[in-house]
């Protein structure tokens, strides 16, 4: 019987220990299959916990970070009074939201109304499972990594559409329709940029893509392909911002126009889930950007032996998260600087600018490969 296995040191460790534990079981149950099933189950639980920890754990940190970054851009201080410099402010927010009254508006489709925030959460969680956080820290080493990400990413829009439609509110509906149109359009650019990465690195496996960028900074995708790499990175940045519904592309929420878009009618915990999903998507998209363009967990070696020696001593996972948080900071700076385009302008930007440029990128990438061989 085939049982999928999780390949990382912790997985091996579990596999080693499971036969010893199984020995205590009655004879009739012992055997190869039992061992591998139990080992898989334990590994799976560990993986789920790890993904949840990374995702849900990072959300309060990100919310705090966002509030501080925006405050400092705007010449103010941000949360200050709860904990040192307001560090535990977001914990209070989350707790409060959990204890709020939950109800659905009159005329809402209740099942879908409560299902929507759950659906929104699925996509970022699934992507997180595919990201290699370190040399051995990877939940699922899938060969078809990039296509899977492209496929899963579409899930988010379903949740938003359902949430907006089931709320029985015109503002919500408009918000969700805008968001649907926007995400489906930008999916194309998103996929094309990732295709460029796949083309240049020659693999759809995220681990292999990362390993292809080993070495110095010059080997990172963003610098590996002169100019085109950087351009692709910018394209990815724009497309992923739109995918995440983040400002300046937050026309789905557009507080000034639609008071809150698709989540106008959500209270308490369901609203917290939308909020959470937004920030988890931020982590996963940044992680994807880091994996595809910024060398993943590789240290930013610069070619000098002495410096590189020190840099390499730091574990890869720390480099990875350092890069992820740098990316997140970039997303935040953009969010608090730019104003929001109109819905039709956003569409024409995608179809008239992003798409042609991405096509050219692919052509350029092909030319680069042809020349370099």
């Amino acid at each position, binding site marked *: 019987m085939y049982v999928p296995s999780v390949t990382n040191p912790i997985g091996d460790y579990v596999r080693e220990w499971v036969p010893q534990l199984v020995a205590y079981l009655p004879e009739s149950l012992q055997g190869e299959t039992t061992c591998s099933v139990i080992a898989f189950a334990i590994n799976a639980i560990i993986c789920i916990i790890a993904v949840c920890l990374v995702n849900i754990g990072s959300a309060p940190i990100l919310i705090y970070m966002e509030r501080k970054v925006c405050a400092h851009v705007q010449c103010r201080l941000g949360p200050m009074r709860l904990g040192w410099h307001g560090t535990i402010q977001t914990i209070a927010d989350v*707790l409060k939201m959990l204890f*709020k009254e939950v109800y659905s508006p009159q005329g809402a489709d209740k099942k879908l109304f409560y299902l929507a925030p759950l659906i929104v959460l699925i996509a970022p969680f699934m992507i997180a499972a595919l990201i290699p956080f370190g040399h051995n820290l990877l939940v699922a080493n899938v060969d078809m990594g990039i296509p899977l990400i492209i496929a899963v990413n579409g899930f988010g829009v379903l949740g938003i559409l359902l949430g907006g439609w089931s709320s029985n509110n015109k503002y919500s509906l408009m918000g969700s329709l805008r968001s649907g149109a926007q995400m489906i359009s930008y999916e194309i650019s998103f996929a094309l940029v990732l295709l460029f990465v796949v083309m240049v690195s020659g693999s759809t496996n995220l681990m292999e893509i990362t390993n292809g960028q080993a070495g110095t900074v010059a080997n990172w995708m963003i610098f590996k392909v002169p100019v085109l790499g950087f351009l692709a990175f910018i394209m990815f940045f724009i497309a992923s911002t739109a995918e995440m519904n983040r400002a300046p592309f937050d026309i789905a929420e557009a507080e000034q126009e639609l008071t809150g878009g698709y989540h106008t009618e959500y209270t308490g915990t369901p609203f917290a889930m939308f909020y959470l999903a937004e920030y988890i998507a931020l982590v996963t998209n940044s992680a994807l950007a880091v994996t595809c363009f910024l060398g993943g967990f590789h240290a930013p070696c610069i070619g000098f032996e002495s410096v590189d020696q020190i840099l390499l001593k730091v574990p890869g996972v720390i480099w990875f998260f350092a890069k992820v948080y740098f990316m997140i900071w970039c997303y935040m700076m953009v969010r608090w600087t730019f104003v929001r385009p109109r819905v039709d302008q956003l569409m024409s930007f995608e179809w008239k600018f992003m798409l042609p440029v991405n096509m050219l990128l692919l052509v350029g990438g092909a030319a680069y490969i042809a020349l370099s061989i």
Partner: protein
Amino acid sequence: MGIINFAPKILDPIPGGKYVVNAIDYVVNWARANSIWPLTYGTSCCAIEMMSSSMARYDIARFGSEVFRASPRQADLFILAGTITRRMAPAIQMLWEQMPGPKYVLAMGACTISGGPFVYDNYSVVRGAQNILPVDVFVPGCPPRPEALFHGLLTLREKILKETCRNPWHEGDTQDLSQLDRYREAAKAWAELEKIKDEEMAEARAKFKEENPDYKSSFKPVRVTKEAFPEIAREHEISLAEKSSKGLSKADMFKALKNKFASVTITGVTAETPEALAEAETAAVAALTADSVLEVRLNAEDYLAAVEFVKNDPAFKMDYLIDVTAIDYPDHFELITMLKSLEKKHQLFLCVPLAKDESIAAEKRATSILAKVPSVSHLYAAAEIKEREVYDMFGIKFEGHQDMRRIFLDPEFEGFPLRKDFTNPNMIKRPV
């Protein structure tokens, strides 16, 4: 309100459960008290101070309250910033009902506490938010400083920290203060006290008078010396107006209008004979100072033609309508149409006396339309909303107006507020 409120029921029978309940209380209250998300709501001046408090200088984010939610479903605190009018009150109640509990209301500014500047002689303002919502914290001021608002937030925080699972948050009660007249209440209370005091003191006073028959108070109130200021004539303003006046002079304007429309006169000028009248009018126009505006009076029949004339006449070219308003006199209305020429910089006010319709019965007069006048909204687009305002406030109907509806008040509102005979059960007369 949520599972937390069942905690005492389940945990209390268990030994030591009380401590768990207390711990839960502590955590929940800590979270609620420190994460207060206000609703984006504001109607007038206080809203600007509320905005200021969330801006860089004062930064409400320090309290974790910068998350102003535009949707009531995600808000915890309703900062009532600005006057609440009778027309707005249902909307406010609805907003409050849409907020999920536990929710709190902070009344910011004098208007929401008591009606503020609009307590007396007012027909449209709700006297205090307590009439429609249960209010938790009051922040007096007009408008309160951002710091005062923060003090209100801290006061609210104290209040939240006192909640427990056993005595959880519940919707408070509203109070009917709509007819509360603080001044008269206080005066009445004092008058009663005074009566008692008079009786008690009568003896002592008589005794005192006997003992000190020629008592003179040693107390001399010291008047504050006020700075002396020179008397200044209005020269500068008048010379300024003279210098800047271009276009037609007042006399020319009057002459041209008089030639065209026979009914044109100047307000207050009367004479026996037409010749004397003309002379008196010319004198009155000449007597107008440069900083005043020529206001000619003409009959309602000539009104539309006159407006058309001054708009199209190349010498006048009154292309800009400043305003349309009216005045209510005991026996007639006066409709004032203020016109201006942007090019020639001269102004002209047309004053049309409108006789009140006498055929309407006395008891119905206050609530019915008493006069009619042709509309000028086809000449000046601006007149459309201005005439609606006059209709709403005075009950003067404009014939030929496309959309003659009330503009500021509900369609069901009875009476026309700016008439002198207007009465409303919600009005309290000014006591002083």
